[in-house]
Structure formats: structure tokens, C-alpha cells
């Protein structure tokens, strides 16, 4: 398999080196604000007024920026200024730990010592601030960044140095149940919109210094924090490099969701199949990381990307690994079947009804013929109408506020299902087929079923025109396409195709945990061994202790 990586990395890195170097350079300089960007490497002046003026100029018409000037330790000569953004900074901390401490408490703590302007900075840092996270900088743009990130910046008159206090605190959603991926068994936590919370959620699951979390900023206007997480020692280093270089290549004005990044780092942007997976469950991300994948977290969204992504991932729910393996395997089998159904059932139905009547057993054919006797449409139109109305219903159900959404689905089901059959507009068999297809497409991941829904319509057209031949040709093209897909160098269909025998333990069937000795071979190249062999529990020889 080594040749694969080699050729791939060659292919991937070719012609991208220069670009990525530029991108990296641009990023390091951190050209934050597009509009009144400070000159590169502009340093602070010792004069507080000048600094304030410069900052105020940058934050012109930003009413949420607060400038609070006061004096240090009641010494009129040492003037200080606090700058922070209202709503992002924790007001309690700012007033208690910074202002109160500096203005009132320092003189009490150090009564005898004389605080001069020159030594003020030293005093503030060592004795004054009661903050857990403090940084120093002399660059204007760092100051701007800090303010925008929610930090509180303390400027000291007479010093070219600003103190950045990590007193962030804003209104954030608390950790709740995963909405998009609910589970019966397994952790109920899901990611939230705050990057730090999310990294903490992962860290809490992988308590190892091997878990590395690197951050960078993306988005020229939004300056969104993006973190790359991986487990050193398991992950393939080349993969990390590749992820970084693809991320650094991105130059967009905004990254509001992981979806932005997903589309910019995909291997095959035209494919209907997603080659970058996302999840909102920390346990799933942790499991992914432990298989050697890389996670990409973005501030402001609870969805985390994981790469490389395999086809089978979309059929594996995190719950599979928590339930007993026999049951999990059975459920997974059902998911496989529903995947195939959701792709082919309507087109098979169309092909059978309008071309290949010999496929039905006689009684079934007669009963379907009886149902279709009064239907005024050809079956393709009929199925198309039903599929479209199903999609409309589904979309309406998602978009509407929850209470109305339910009403819509009830009315829709009644109108479309019951009434249209009674009116003789639609055959009952068609309703069954469409409903089964629709439900089948909900058994696996949403983002994946979108691809199947799109392709389903294509296959329907094909089978309406050429019957079974059209359907099979369409499926063949889809298969070829899937075979040609890669996600970050890993063949999309692996471990099925190309077959890596040991990895088939976790595809259609889920092996018991005592059988999962190795990590996926094509993803985790470094540390293949997952666990010790011989963990299969054996009952003690002596049943009674």
C-alpha cells in the first residue's frame, strides 16, 4: 500500500507547495481587519493616548467596544486603559479581578513599596492581576485580535506593552443532547458552538498527551478559530500535513460552519457523495481519532469534520459500538439493505411496472394491475409526483417550527397517502414503495442520504427510459464513480474495495470488541495494534467462588 500513499501525496502536493507557503505567510501576519488594518508589525507606542486613538480609529463606529480608563493603585501618574467588547468579556471578571484589583487592592497588598510608572508593568503582572491567563504583546494587531476574540486588553501608559487578559465570557448554549444523531445507548453530550468547550469534550475522552490540538485562523473577515485534532502516534503524519496544507490553502472571507471548509478541502467536489464526514458527537470524534483520523473543529458550530472518510462510516452509528455486537451487526445489515432500497426501490418499481412484468409473481401482478387500472398517469410520473411530494413534505417538516411541522406531516400523509389512493390518482402500491423508500433513507446518515436521494431521481429517469438496463447501467456508473473516489488518499470504498481482509470486521458486521485487534489499515498506518489479543471473556472454571 505504500505506493498508494506515495503516488497520492505526489499527486496531492504537486503544484500546491508555493501556494500553501503564501497562505501560511499570510496567516502568520494575521491581517485581521480588512478595513482599517494596522500596518504589519505595527508596534504600540509608549503613549497611552496614541494607542487609544489608534485603536479607536480601528474600532470606529463599534459601539460595543468599551474603553475604560482608570489609574493604577490610585497613582494619578500611572494611567491604565481597559478595552474589551461588551458581551464577549466576562463583566464580573473585568470589574472584580482586573479593575478592582489594580485600582484598589494593589496598594493594600504592597503598602511599603513605591510604585513608579516605570515599574508599573512589573507590578501589574506579578501582583496586580488576579487572572488565570495573561499574555503580553507589543503588536497592535495582536491587540485588535485579542479584543475581537473577547479578551480584555490592558494598556499601561508609558509602556509599549499590552496585557491581554483571558477574561472571556459570553452567553453560550450549554451542552445538550445531540439533535442530529440521537442515540438510545451511549453518551448524550453533543458539541456546542464554542471551540474551547468542544476541544475540552474531546480531551475529556482521550486523556493522553498524544492528543494534539493545533489551531489556526480562517476567514479573512470572520477570523474564525479552527482546530485540528489528532492523536500522535496513531495518526499518519502525512495525513496531518495534508490536512494542514489543504486548510491553509483556504482563503475565504468567512467560515461560519464546517460546511464551508468541507467544500473547500474535498477530494472530488463534483461528487454527490460526501468525502468529508461530520458529526456532533464527541464520543464519535474520539473514536475516529483513535482510528487515526484527523478532526477539524470550527468555532461557532457544533459540527466537527473528520477525515479521511469512508463509505462505510455513514452506515456505522456510534451506537453500534455500544450495543451488543450481534444486535449491532443485525442493525447494520438492515442499514445496508435500506441503503440499497432507498437508492433502487422506486426505479426497480418503475422498471418492473413499465417494462418487466414478468418479474412479479402472477397474483401480485394481477393485484397491482387492478390497483393501477384507474390511475391516469404512467408509473414514472406517478412515482415522480409521489417522490417529489414526499421530499416537499420532508422539507416542510424540517423547516417549520416543530408544532406546525407535525401538523404538516399529518395532513400531508393523509392527503397524499390516503386521499390520493381513494381518489384513484395514485396506486396504493406506489404509496407503499415511496413510503418505504423514504423511511429507508432515514436509517443512515442524513448527509449521506442526500446523495442517495439525488441519485434516486436519476436512476428513476434511467429506468423509465431503458428499464432494467437503464437501472443497471446507472448503478454501474455509480459503482465506478464510487470506486474512483478517494478521501484524503484513502479509497472511499475501502476496506471493501480494495479489500483489506482484517478490516472487514467492521463493515457490514460489527465484530465483538474482543475481536477488534487492529485499527483500520489504510487510515492508521503507524500504530496498527488496537488492543491485546485474547480478551474474549471466559467464564471462570469454578462457577462458585
Amino acid at each position, binding site marked *: 500500500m505504500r*505506493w498508494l500513499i506515495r*503516488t497520492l501525496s505526489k499527486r496531492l502536493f504537486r503544484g500546491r507547495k508555493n501556494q500553501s507557503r503564501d497562505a501560511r505567510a499570510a496567516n502568520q501576519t494575521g491581517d485581521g481587519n480588512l478595513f482599517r488594518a494596522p500596518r504589519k508589525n505595527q508596534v504600540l507606542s509608549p503613549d497611552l493616548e496614541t494607542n487609544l486613538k489608534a485603536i479607536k480609529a480601528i474600532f470606529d463606529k463599534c459601539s460595543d467596544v468599551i474603553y475604560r480608563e482608570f489609574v493604577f493603585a490610585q497613582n494619578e501618574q500611572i494611567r491604565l486603559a481597559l478595552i474589551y467588547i461588551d458581551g464577549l468579556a466576562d463583566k464580573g471578571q473585568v470589574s472584580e479581578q482586573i479593575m478592582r484589583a489594580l485600582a484598589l487592592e494593589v496598594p493594600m497588598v504592597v503598602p511599603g513599596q513605591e510604585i513608579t510608572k516605570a515599574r508599573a508593568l512589573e507590578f501589574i503582572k506579578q501582583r496586580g492581576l488576579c487572572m488565570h491567563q495573561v499574555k503580553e504583546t507589543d503588536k497592535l494587531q495582536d491587540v485588535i485580535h485579542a479584543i475581537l476574540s473577547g479578551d480584555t486588553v490592558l494598556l499601561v501608559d508609558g509602556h509599549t506593552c499590552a496585557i491581554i487578559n483571558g477574561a472571556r465570557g459570553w452567553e453560550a448554549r450549554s451542552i445538550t443532547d445531540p439533535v442530529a444523531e440521537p442515540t438510545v445507548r451511549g453518551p448524550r453530550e453533543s458539541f456546542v458552538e464554542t471551540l474551547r468547550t468542544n476541544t475540552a469534550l474531546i480531551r475529556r475522552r482521550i486523556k493522553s498527551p498524544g492528543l494534539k490540538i493545533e489551531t489556526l485562523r480562517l476567514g479573512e473577515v470572520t477570523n474564525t478559530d479552527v482546530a485540528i485534532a489528532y492523536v500522535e502516534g496513531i495518526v499518519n503524519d502525512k495525513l496531518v500535513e495534508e490536512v494542514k496544507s489543504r486548510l491553509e490553502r483556504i482563503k475565504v472571507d468567512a467560515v461560519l460552519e464546517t460546511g464551508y471548509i468541507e467544500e473547500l478541502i474535498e477530494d472530488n467536489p463534483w461528487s454527490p457523495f460526501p468525502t468529508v464526514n461530520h458529526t456532533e458527537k464527541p464520543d464519535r470524534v474520539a473514536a475516529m481519532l483513535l482510528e487515526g483520523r484527523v478532526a477539524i473543529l470550527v468555532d461557532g458550530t457544533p459540527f466537527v469534520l473528520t477525515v479521511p472518510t469512508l463509505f462505510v462510516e455513514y452506515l456505522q452509528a456510534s451506537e453500534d459500538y455500544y450495543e451488543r455486537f450481534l444486535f449491532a451487526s443485525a442493525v447494520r445489515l438492515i442499514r445496508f439493505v435500506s441503503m440499497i432500497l432507498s437508492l433502487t426501490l422506486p426505479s426497480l418499481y418503475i422498471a418492473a411496472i413499465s*417494462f*418487466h412484468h*414478468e*418479474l*412479479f*409473481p402472477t397474483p401480485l401482478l394481477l393485484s397491482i394491475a387492478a390497483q393501477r387500472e384507474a390511475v391516469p398517469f404512467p408509473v414514472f410520473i406517478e412515482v415522480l409526483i409521489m417522490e417529489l411530494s414526499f421530499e416537499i413534505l420532508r422539507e416542510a417538516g424540517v423547516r417549520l417550527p416543530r408544532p406546525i411541522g407535525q401538523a404538516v406531516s399529518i395532513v400531508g400523509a393523509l392527503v397524499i397517502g390516503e386521499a390520493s389512493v381513494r381518489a384513484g390518482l395514485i396506486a396504493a402500491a406506489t404509496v407503499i414503495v415511496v413510503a418505504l423508500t423514504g423511511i429507508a433513507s432515514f436509517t443512515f446518515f442524513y448527509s449521506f442520504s442526500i446523495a442517495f436521494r439525488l441519485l434516486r431521481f436519476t436512476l428513476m429517469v434511467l429506468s423509465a427510459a*431503458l*428499464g*432494467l*438496463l*437503464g437501472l*443497471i*447501467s446507472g*448503478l*454501474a*456508473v455509480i*459503482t*465506478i*464513480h464510487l*470506486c*474512483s473516489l478517494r478521501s484524503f488518499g484513502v*479509497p472511499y*470504498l475501502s476496506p*471493501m*474495495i*480494495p*479489500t483489506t481482509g482484517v478490516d472487514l470486521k467492521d463493515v457490514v458486521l460489527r465484530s465483538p470488541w474482543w475481536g477488534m485487534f487492529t485499527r483500520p489499515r489504510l487510515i492508521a498506518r503507524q500504530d496498527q495494534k488496537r488492543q491485546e489479543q485474547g480478551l474474549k471473556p471466559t467464564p471462570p472454571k469454578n462457577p462458585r467462588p
Partner: protein
Amino acid sequence: MLEKGKIDSNQAVMLMVSLVLPTAILFVPAIIVKHARQDAWLAAIVALLGGLLIARLVVSLSLRFPEKTLFEYAQTILGKVPGKLVGLLYIWWFLYTGALIMDEFASFLCTAIMPETPPVVLFLVGIAVAAYAVRNGLEVLSRYNQLLLPILLGLLVITFLLVTKDMKAERLLPVFDQSAPAILKGAAVPLSWLGEIVLFAMIIPFLQKPREAHRVAALATLFTGLFFAICTVVTLSVFGPNLAAHWVFPVYNTVRVVSIANFLERLDIIIVAVWVFGGFAKMGVFYYAAVLGSAQWLGLKDYRPLVAPVGLLLIGLALLCDNIVDLLDFAARAWPPYALIVFEVGMPLFLMIVALVRGKGESNA
């Protein structure tokens, strides 16, 4: 090298199975049974043994030049001009066989599922899918095949199991009813199909482990030959030697016979799926060989520009075929000497001898 991908041995075995099996299971049983009657399975085994010899010959020849395809080492062995001539012959063979496969593809579909469809449409559809696979390269083609072949063969085996109810072992008796010449005649056709393994000479350089080529070719031939024999036995034991020889597509009819519990019946769709999915693969392999061969013959840097024009050419050649009787007659009578003598045994043997005499290539292979 023109092809950048590499395939592993399993994929190669499956590709070589697909090279022969999909069309063969439809046409060949009837032809074998026609000659060898009850002893058709024996003929299939004889053909299998012959096929193993051909595979041995071709792989031995190719392994003298493990980095080169047939087109390249023909020139090394024979010199530039005669080598080019051999190459041209093989391009013709690949192209025309590809076209014949398409004819078979279309004639089956026309007979079995869609009689009113003009063959041109079927050609266009078939070529479009195969071209998509070929353009994506050997790697994707063999992956496609690796994914589908086991499923298709599994389905086929399941239907064979379902038809056991209608099988009667007596229909296979008596053994050795036919004379040896009849059995050999019956073996000629399957042998000439198994001999298509010559195409493996185009694939060997792209194996991850070329040294396993002998194993790959032998396994593929063994599997294909055995599957032939199984198909023949199943067909025979369902229809008996008299009727089996009369069907055009006996395996198709066999599957149509399945009827279990008044519900599990009418499984025609399975054989159609096997045939169409497999047909794409088989067509793809010949198509690929023709395209790659042409590119090497012309000394091009990339074979992909040729994919589409060669597809058009294939359609043109396939259109030449007039009717299914011509096709069947050709497959049963002219094809075995044409393919065996010239391309499958004659040419490789000739190349091998010349190579040995001239001492070209690695002798340890």
C-alpha cells in the same frame, strides 16, 4: 509508464475471471452440449486443462519482461517492424473481440428483455459505461469488478441452488457416451474462450507483485473453467442433453425454471443483472486492452484521449454484425480456430520460441 495504477493479485484474478465468464456462461454451455451432450462437463474440464496450459505459456512469456506489456515486448523480441505488426494484429483482436462482446451483449438484451430497442442504443449505453470505467483507469476498473463479481457469482450460485429441485442426475448419464473427438470438439469452444487469458499479458506489468502472475492466471482459469463446468452440469441436469443444446441461452432458461413455493420464481432479473454488470466489466477489459495497446503502439504519453474514439470504433465494428445466427455460428465454429491458432496459442508460442532462441528477457521466469 502509461498506466499509473497498480492492482493486487486478488483484483487481477477477479478481472481475469470477468474477462471470460460473463458472456461465456450464456453462450458456451449450449455449444459444448451440442457436441459433447451428456459429457459436456467432461469437455469443460478438458478445456480447463488446456486453458491452464495457455495461461502458463502466456505468463511465462510475459514474466520474461515483467515491466512490459505484450505490445512492448513483441518489439523487443522481434524487432521494431515485425513487433509493430504483431501489435497491430493484437489491437485488431482486442477491438474486434470487444465489438463481438457488444454484439452478444445487445443480442441477449434484445432477446431477453427489450426486443424493440435498437441495438445502437444498447451499444451506446454499454460503451458509455465501459468508457467511463476505462477512462478512470485500470485501478478503478478492477475495483468495480472486485466489488461486483463476487455478488454476481454469489447470486448465480444461489439461483443454481434454487433450481436443484428441478435437476435430475440421470440426465447426466451415461458418462462417456460420446466419442473422444466429440468431446474434444466440445472442448474447443470453451478452450478458445478460456484462452482469452492472453489479455493478461497487458495487465501483468501493473500487478503489485508480478511474481504472482502464474498463480493469478492459474487461479482465474481454474475458477472460470470450473464455473463453466458447473453451469453446464446445471443446465444439463435441468434440461437434459437434447433440450439444453437447443436453447440459445441455456443458463438463462435454467434460471427461468426456478419456482419455489409459488413465489420465489421469475428470477430472470438475476441473470440479466449478472450479464449486464459482468458485460460492462468484460467489455471494459477488452476496451482497456485495445486503448492501452493502441497508445503503446503509437508511443503516446497518455491513453485516455483514445478512450472515446475507440468507443466509437467499437460501435462501428459492432454494427457490422448482421444477425444473431451469424454471431452464434461464428462463435461456435470460426472463433475457436481464429482465436486459438492465431492469438491465444500461436502468437505467444512463436514469441516464446523466438525469445528463447534470441535469448531475450529474463530467463529465470
